[in-house]
């Protein structure tokens, strides 16, 4: 039976939309009043509620704040490094904060440069981006988006955060240790890392905490997504963000343990004097090392990169998820090619496990194994292109809104495009011979992570800020932040491709000027350092905006962006430990029913709005007309 026009079926009745909404608001208000009346019974201590919280939303906030602090810290390390690169050997007043041991008289020592380099990489990857992308955004949003009351294992979630924070603090504490912190690159290659100073041991211990945190978290995410989806939320009705987090969690689950094993082996080498990675006859500073020998440094590389390659997909997938959500919302259209996106992201996750040795083309691998990894690397570029194409196609014929999150989101696309394309010559063994360990590599991966993932993080913060706080961030400051960051970040990283092609090696404490062929880099380095410091200046409006909006920002309701996914049907800033939804949602349609001609109440049709007969979950994705269904089938 065709539903009466302009009316929705709620239970056994047909109501006008306004009446339906009023009914729902009454239910919510009644529930909140009930809770206020009984609120005094659930008096939790401050420690239980805010420090050792088991609510995924607060844990997400904890992760977010901690990760942003580490992001700023890791960024500052880079700013100091870039001073040295702009004017190698020059005394800078600000460098005095590194202390006399690292920068006597404000002149950075090469050892200090190496420490900054290793820790910048480690902190950005393991303490900032992944905790922000997965721990913060993932934790906060995934249960909300699938209609769950919390994560499957709330206490385990709390344990995850409380493994992350100590791990991070151990990493920070390593700066104060004799000999300084880890200085063997974020990759910690032996034999150098085996014989390095004490700081490296702290790095290894810190990593074990971080890996444990990651493992606990990934189990939680996977079980939550598989088991706690609300009624009607089939896998193919999940927002793309949830799919991205799902695949990411599989990567974290299966790829991290080999690095944990490798970390244990390196710890044994350093502390128990084993020789897992130390070859026989190694001479250090003119003296033969007093170890048993028989080890293999390349073993570390295999184990490290077995994790670290999936790790880079861990860095990018949540970002793609965020971009997908924001694009769908601000184009007022469904994402183009949802099925392709899902297929691509699953295939990408799988392939990411079989490409790792493309980081090792220069270790003397034979032609057969090199050919294998080169082939898989070329294959893995395909799903990335599919995802990028689907997102680009989503912009076609859209009714675009250019708010700050959308600006960052659409910028992500070409930036990730540059990052991805520059990965191709690195993935081909022949060209990698020329480009390996040069600035080209640094340019490539920073393009994917910095104007790539970090822009997506910014986009996500602007987008979901109103859900978490109930206030909207200031648009003007947002646009200043955006334009300034866009220009400066390209200024920092684009010249790196030219430097790399010309042969400027990475990890040189003077930026290459000691070598004849790299002398030209001096002026480029100066330019890039200026851009980096300008980039810092443009983060100030963002930081100010972030805090001031919490207090003075414009108050908004639960769905200020008129979005369709379930988190927006939860009340603004959902209360802790009281479940996420006043009424447990039932899902009737896909996640991006924008501008559906069947629904005339608005240009967005939330996943859980009641209409017609509630039908059991069907693969078709709910009540779509033939035209809309055809569009959905790409």
């Amino acid at each position, binding site marked *: 039976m065709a539903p009466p026009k302009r009316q929705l079926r709620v239970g056994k009745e047909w109501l006008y939309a306004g009446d339906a909404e009023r009914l729902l608001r009454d239910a919510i208000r009644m529930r909140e009043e009930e809770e206020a009346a009984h609120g005094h019974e659930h008096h939790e201590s401050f420690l239980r509620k805010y420090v050792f919280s088991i609510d995924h939303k607060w844990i997400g906030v904890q992760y977010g704040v901690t990760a942003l602090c580490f992001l700023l810290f890791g960024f500052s390390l880079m700013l100091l490094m870039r001073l040295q690169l702009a004017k190698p050997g020059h005394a800078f007043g600000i460098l005095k904060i590194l202390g006399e041991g690292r920068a006597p008289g404000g002149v950075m020592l090469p050892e200090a440069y190496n420490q900054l380099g290793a820790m910048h990489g480690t902190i950005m990857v393991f303490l900032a981006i992944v905790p922000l992308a997965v721990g913060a955004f993932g934790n906060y949003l995934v249960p909300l988006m699938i209609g769950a009351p919390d994560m499957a294992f709330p206490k385990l979630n709390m344990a995850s955060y409380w493994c992350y924070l100590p791990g991070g603090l151990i990493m920070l504490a390593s700066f104060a240790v004799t000999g300084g912190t880890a200085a063997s690159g974020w990759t910690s290659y032996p034999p150098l890392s085996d014989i390095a100073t004490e700081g490296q041991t702290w790095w290894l211990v810190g990593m074990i905490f971080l890996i444990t945190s990651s493992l606990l978290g990934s189990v939680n995410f996977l079980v939550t997504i598989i088991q706690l989806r609300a009624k009607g939320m089939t896998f193919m009705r999940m927002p793309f963000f949830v799919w991205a987090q799902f695949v990411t969690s599989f990567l974290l689950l299966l790829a991290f343990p080999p690095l944990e094993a490798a970390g244990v082996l390196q710890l044994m080498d350093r502390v128990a004097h084993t020789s897992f990675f130390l070859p026989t006859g190694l001479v250090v500073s003119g003296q033969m090392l007093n170890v048993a020998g028989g080890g293999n440094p390349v073993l570390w590389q295999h184990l490290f990169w077995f994790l670290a390659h999936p790790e880079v997909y861990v860095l990018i997938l949540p970002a793609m998820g965020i971009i997908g959500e924001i694009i769908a919302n601000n184009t007022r259209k469904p994402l183009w090619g949802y099925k392709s996106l899902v297929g691509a992201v699953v295939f990408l996750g799988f392939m990411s496990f079989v490409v*790792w040795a493309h980081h090792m083309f220069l270790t003397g691998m*034979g032609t057969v194994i090199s050919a294998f990894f080169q082939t898989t690397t070329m294959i893995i570029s395909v799903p990335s292109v599919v995802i990028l194409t689907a997102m680009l196609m989503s912009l076609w014929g859209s009714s675009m809104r250019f708010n700050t999150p959308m600006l960052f989101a659409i910028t992500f696309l070409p930036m990730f495009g540059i990052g991805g394309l520059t990965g191709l010559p690195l993935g081909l063994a022949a060209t990698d011979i020329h480009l390996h360990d040069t600035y080209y590599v640094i340019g490539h991966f920073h393009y994917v992570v910095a104007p790539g993932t970090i822009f997506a993080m910014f986009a996500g913060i602007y987008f979901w800020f109103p859900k978490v706080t109930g206030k909207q961030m200031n648009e003007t400051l947002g646009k200043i932040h955006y334009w300034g960051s866009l220009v400066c970040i390209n200024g920092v990283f684009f010249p790196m491709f030219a430097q790399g092609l010309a042969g400027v090696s990475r990890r040189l404490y003077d930026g290459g000027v000691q070598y004849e062929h790299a002398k030209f880099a001096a002026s480029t380095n100066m330019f890039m350092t200026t851009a980096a410091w300008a980039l810092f200046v443009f983060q100030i409006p963002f930081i100010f905006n972030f805090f001031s909006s919490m207090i003075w920002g414009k108050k908004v309701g639960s769905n200020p962006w008129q979005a369709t996914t379930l988190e927006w049907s939860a009340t603004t800033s959902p209360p802790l430990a009281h479940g996420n939804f006043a009424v447990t949602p039932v899902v009737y349609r896909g996640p991006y029913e924008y501008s559906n001609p069947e629904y005339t109440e608005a240009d967005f049709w939330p996943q859980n709005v009641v209409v017609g007969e509630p039908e059991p979950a069907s693969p078709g994705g709910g009540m779509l007309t033939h035209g809309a269904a055809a569009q959905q089938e790409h």
Partner: protein
Amino acid sequence: MDTTTTEHLADEHTHGGVHDPNAHHSPEEIRKETRKYLVVFFALACLTAITVGVSYLHLESHEAIAIALIIASIKAFLVAGYFMHLLSERKLIYAVLGITVFFFAMLLWGPWNHHYDYFGR
């Protein structure tokens, strides 16, 4: 949504007709399983004895490795199949384990292959 409730173990008719290794309705069936466990135990003990015995035969290293791994795999199959009741487990678990086994194989293959296929060989 669905709340956790105290359930009597014997009354498990609420699983929607889905096959569940836990949903053995009668104590009889559970006791039958118990007997299976004891049989598996004896098999494992015997296989352990065989493994140790074979090692005293001083076989060629390839043969020794192959036989040891085959016996270990049979034991593993028994433990996983019966004690962990993997044989009656859900498809989802098989999928997770299948993916894991594939990546495990890659992890074993990669470094080892590197050893045999390097420049100058």
